[in-house]
């Protein structure tokens, strides 16, 4: 089973402040644990929302709003993707993450293609595959 953990933004992360050395070390150690346990598939930190944008959809209209955005708590500052045998295992791993001060991290199970069933037509699938390959080719 695949899971995503969403790490919320904080006023500090939104201000572009780097975490303390202490926290970075703790986070490195935690990431290392995840890798050594064979659980970690991916994990990234995100720049503050001031470097991001929102695109609003209304009919044919597309409105682009540049960051930063308020409500730091509703913004995402990073994520992990894990492979675990169960939801319980993912929770056990998450409990070991070095956070404090009332921060809440969200654990979500990742949908896999088969969960969509027939909603995803072969044509849509092919388009999706092309897109992903192009993305891959650019990396």
């Amino acid at each position, binding site marked *: 089973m695949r899971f995503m953990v969403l790490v919320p933004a904080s006023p500090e992360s939104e201000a572009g402040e780097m975490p303390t050395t202490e926290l970075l070390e703790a986070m490195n150690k935690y990431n*290392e644990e995840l*890798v*050594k*346990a*064979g*659980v*970690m*598939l*991916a994990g990234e930190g995100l720049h503050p929302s001031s470097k991001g944008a929102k695109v609003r959809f209304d009919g044919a209209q597309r409105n682009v709003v540049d960051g930063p955005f308020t409500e730091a708590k509703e913004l995402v500052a990073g994520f992990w*993707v894990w*492979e675990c*045998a*169960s939801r*319980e*295992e993912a*929770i*056990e*791993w998450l409990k070991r993450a070095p956070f404090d001060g009332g921060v809440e991290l969200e654990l979500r199970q990742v949908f*896999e*293609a*088969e969960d969509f069933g027939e909603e995803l037509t*072969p044509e849509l*699938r*092919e*388009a*999706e*595959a*092309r897109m*992903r*390959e192009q993305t*891959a080719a650019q*990396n």
Partner: protein
Amino acid sequence: MVPGRSPIELRSSTEPLAASATHRAIDAVWRIESARLIAGLTRIVRDVSVAEDLAQDALVAALEQWPESGIPDNPGAWLMAAAKHRGIDALRRRVTLERKQELIGRELQILGQLDQPDLAAQVDDVQDDILRLVFMTCHPVLSREARVALTLRLLGGLSTPEIARAFLVSEGTVAQRIVRAKRTLAQARVPFEVPARDELADRLSAVLEVIYLVFNEGYAATAGEHWIRPALCEDALRLGRILAALMPREPEVHGLLALMELQASRLRARVGPHGEPVLLADQDRARWDHLLVQRGLAGLQRAEERSRALGPYTLQAAIAACHARARSVEETDWARIVALYDGLAALTGSPVVELNRAVAVTMAFGPKAGLELVDSLADGPALRGYHLLPSVRGDLLVRLGRLAEAREEFLRAADLCDNDRERELLLSRAVACGT
């Protein structure tokens, strides 16, 4: 804890209870902690059988206490402490019960080691212990079946019933295999250590073989009603990822992991809606798992950077990567695949590799060239009884329009095949050739 006692199958006896949330959580903790626990205990008591018994005792203690007390903040340390306490208690109790003035030497030794301060908690080399345990459970003194069972049990955290289900054998058989394996390790005095440089290559290839055996049984089940068993692939991937983190300088460790990630990326496209196998050429490539593809390609690069000459797993990963990078069968770089198979054939001398090479030659240079190669293989004894030989030959004959001969080959292949789903596919291909 009594050394030498046959291991009790706690997890099977507690399975009805596993419905409760705490038990599921304990299961999860066990999966995370058991390898470290057993590895740490093996270093202390120098006997993997005793270590596992102690670890199981700690699990019993957790099952008794955690539903009341809740899961402790540091469950790993809790389990280690519980294992040691139980071990010491049991040994002391046995002395009293049997009214012996002194323990027999071995038990005294174990008691002394358990009474030491908690080395495992102080030293930050739990990872080294896990690596030592890997080399122990994959030791060549054991049969392949025993290596696989013991590795899944001690490092994968699987219960005996889970291993039995995975390999479609009875629980008794697996339990026996594990008991015997542990006895063999003790009798052969297999040391708890990473092999020295001069034997490392051979011993490492034994470890990689075990992991790949597990993966393959999940990827193309040799028997039974299901064609793939993804959970087994995940267990192998997890072991491969653990090993890659433990031995980051070994190219073939990355090569094997890359190979498994690339193959696993196709898992969900390999099965049709009714459980039937879908061959590479017919797969909906949109259903490939692109996160695994990316991880596989990155792993292959790590393997290639660390290699002087590419090893067999890295070569296979490189072949898998050719498929992973291709948008379709037609756009696949078949000439490169043939070249990679050349290297692999030279390295392994395996007729199965030659057979695969023949398929690649067909794709690169046409079915006639492929058929010549397959026919030269069919003359040899090595592949007699191997269902993929007539299956490939049938496929080539179809391409050449020789349908009647193709039909015979598919029927022969179906006859030789032990997997129900694969046999159905072969029979349907025979039918498609007409009569």
